[in-house]
């Protein structure tokens, strides 16, 4: 009994349970959901196909975003809703630098690494702007990021003069590797990018004070200040880290399609990222967090999305179902509900023990 309680009370239990539930549902509904086949893509390179691979592939972007979103949530007690717009900006910057003024270039104008680094810097700058509004002007994070949410896609379109640059395979083949497959390796590249990102953040959390400082600022900024921390700086740092994550996602997104559609790219991804953090059992009001739980949460969300697609849910109706999941999650994790349920169980238990004693 104690063992069960110990496992249930662990934070990572929530996403694990959700994952198991979804897996079980799919197993009953259609066992072929888990089939993975080795096929060949149009270039004749070996690639793995199957729903699980899709989940790993598309879940990777979400996992990378969840890293930054967890830190922002923990430090500020709010969420950044401009990540979708940020991805559009980062992607637009990359394409602009690769294509120059010509929207259908025959060769790349700048090396990819330069384009990517500049995109990271731009993305960090936008995130720092959000961070300054939150930290120094004390505006609620969701409202502060609303500014970029409104303007972000417009800025992205403006960067490329509203043209849609396309990097065709004749121009450069290797650009597509980042979002698809590297020839000869049957696993999608975003999975590797996600693994590397997760490794880096885990090392950072292990060997620096980032986790401790972020949590203490999230729990109580005033007492953190009295303990010699600089809450403003830590809040901005968390936003800047999210900026880096956003730029990486931007690279993956534009590399997948080799072009960009400003109004559609990464649409509604902020909802999924916030959902991943919530599903990981992290308090959305800030404070303690578990990075592993958030990352697992991201893959669970993608699992849910793929399952819904499998059930023939149209992509534009998808948000309605996800919204129900969110509401169920937040209601279940609300302190008042927990207290009530806890009381109910206690009553149940005491009745039970009384009954036992009487017998």
């Amino acid at each position, binding site marked *: 009994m104690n063992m069960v309680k110990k496992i249930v009370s662990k934070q990572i239990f929530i996403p694990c349970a959700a994952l198991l539930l979804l897996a079980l549902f799919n197993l009953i509904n259609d066992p072929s959901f888990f089939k993975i086949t080795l096929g060949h893509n149009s270039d004749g390179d070996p690639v793995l196909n199957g729903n699980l691979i899709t989940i790993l592939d598309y879940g990777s972007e979400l996992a990378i975003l969840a890293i930054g979103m967890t830190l922002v949530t923990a430090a500020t007690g709010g969420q950044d809703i401009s990540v979708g717009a940020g991805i559009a900006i980062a992607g637009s910057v990359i394409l602009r630098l690769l294509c120059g003024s010509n929207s259908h270039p025959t060769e790349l104008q700048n090396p990819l690494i330069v384009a990517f680094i500049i995109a990271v810097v731009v993305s960090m700058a936008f995130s720092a702007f959000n961070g300054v509004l939150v930290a120094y002007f004390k505006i*609620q994070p969701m409202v502060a990021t609303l500014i970029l949410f*409104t303007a972000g896609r417009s*800025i992205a379109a403006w960067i490329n003069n509203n043209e849609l640059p396309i990097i065709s395979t004749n121009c450069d083949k290797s650009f597509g590797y980042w979002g698809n497959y590297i020839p000869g390796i049957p696993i999608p590249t975003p999975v590797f990018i996600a693994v590397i990102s997760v490794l880096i953040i885990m090392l950072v959390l292990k060997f620096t004070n980032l986790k401790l400082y972020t949590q203490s600022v999230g729990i109580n900024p005033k007492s953190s200040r009295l303990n010699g921390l600089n809450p403003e700086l830590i809040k901005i740092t968390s936003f800047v880290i999210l900026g880096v994550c956003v730029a990486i996602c931007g690279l993956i997104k534009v590399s997948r399609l080799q072009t960009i559609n400003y109004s559609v790219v990464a649409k509604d991804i902020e909802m999924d990222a916030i959902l991943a953090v919530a599903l990981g059992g992290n308090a959305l009001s800030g404070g303690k967090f578990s990075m592993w739980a958030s990352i697992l949460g991201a893959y669970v969300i993608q699992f849910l999305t793929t399952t819904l697609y499998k059930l023939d849910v*149209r992509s534009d109706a998808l948000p309605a179902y996800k919204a129900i999941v*969110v509401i169920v999650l937040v209601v279940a994790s*609300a*302190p008042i509900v927990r207290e009530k349920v806890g009381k109910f169980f206690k009553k149940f238990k005491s009745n039970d023990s009384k009954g036992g004693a009487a017998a």
Partner: protein
Amino acid sequence: MMKKFRSMSDTNLLLTITIVVFAVMYLCAVVFLGEGFRTPQTFLNLFNNNASLIIISCGLSLVMITGGIDISVGGVTALVCMSCAVNLDLHGGNVVTSMLIALGIGLAFGLVQGFLIAYLDIQPFIVTLAGMFFARGLTTIVHTDPFNVQNEDFVKLRDTRITIPGLGSTNRKGIYVDAYIEIGVVIAIVIVLALFFMLRWSKLGRNFYAVGGNQQSALMLGINVKRTKFFSYVLCGLLAGIAGYVYFMHAGSGSPSHAQGAEMNAIASSIIGGTMLTGGVGNIIGTLFGVLSLNTIKDIVSSIGLQDAWWTGITVAVMLCLFLIIQSIVMTRKNAKGSAGKETAAQS
């Protein structure tokens, strides 16, 4: 004069800023941009095109005054349009049933969200974000494609125009055209006035301010904080339903892309109108001017030749940012003044 300025309450100070900004902007437009802005109809069109936005923003202001936020309003508007359109054309409903549907949807969203936020104490942003996605998703489930409504009674209602004598102007062909407003504008103005009086003189209205200003002290004053919050969301939902119908009357169609980004425009309007995000400060008249300022800026931007769609997005964001920072400065100044006042009191 200076003393009077200092003693102005936050609500009035922010309201004054908004009205002055709007007046200056419109005058500049009239003086420098000429013809288009000089006809009264241009001014009336600000109302005609934004009647639903005015209603949404009013609802949002109520919620913001109590210290919450509701971003589901745009989604609810789209859902109402689509449901009414489907009801009128595909299910053989009439104007009355469609109105009832609009009110019902708004009320349902308000009740559920209000309950979750006020009684279960869940963050308003998360609840209403889910509400927004739910409404948007449901809109496409109700019907996938946009379509125009053909129902005769409704078309008659849609095309009803109220002419205003004396404000007409001659068009390019030299024909005199009467100035007009749509029915939606009348509804919007009635709602603005009703809410203004409610906030100023009714008990519920004062409770909104008290709860937004300081929950703890409101509780100590014997105000039922939870119920007050609940009412603010119910009212906001109901107004979103009405706004949906007004939008429907203006557009005459149902479409999943209706009222895209309306929640952001409404929040921006409320903020520009001097409603504080932290709660307790705000004015419905300010919100009205917020909507007008926002759309005047859009008109100006498009009339000086920056017609590309991205400019409006960027200008709205810049304006929002500016007003947020003004608010933040007003707040910090007030806090500084408050603590300074305490110190002098302690010294004396």
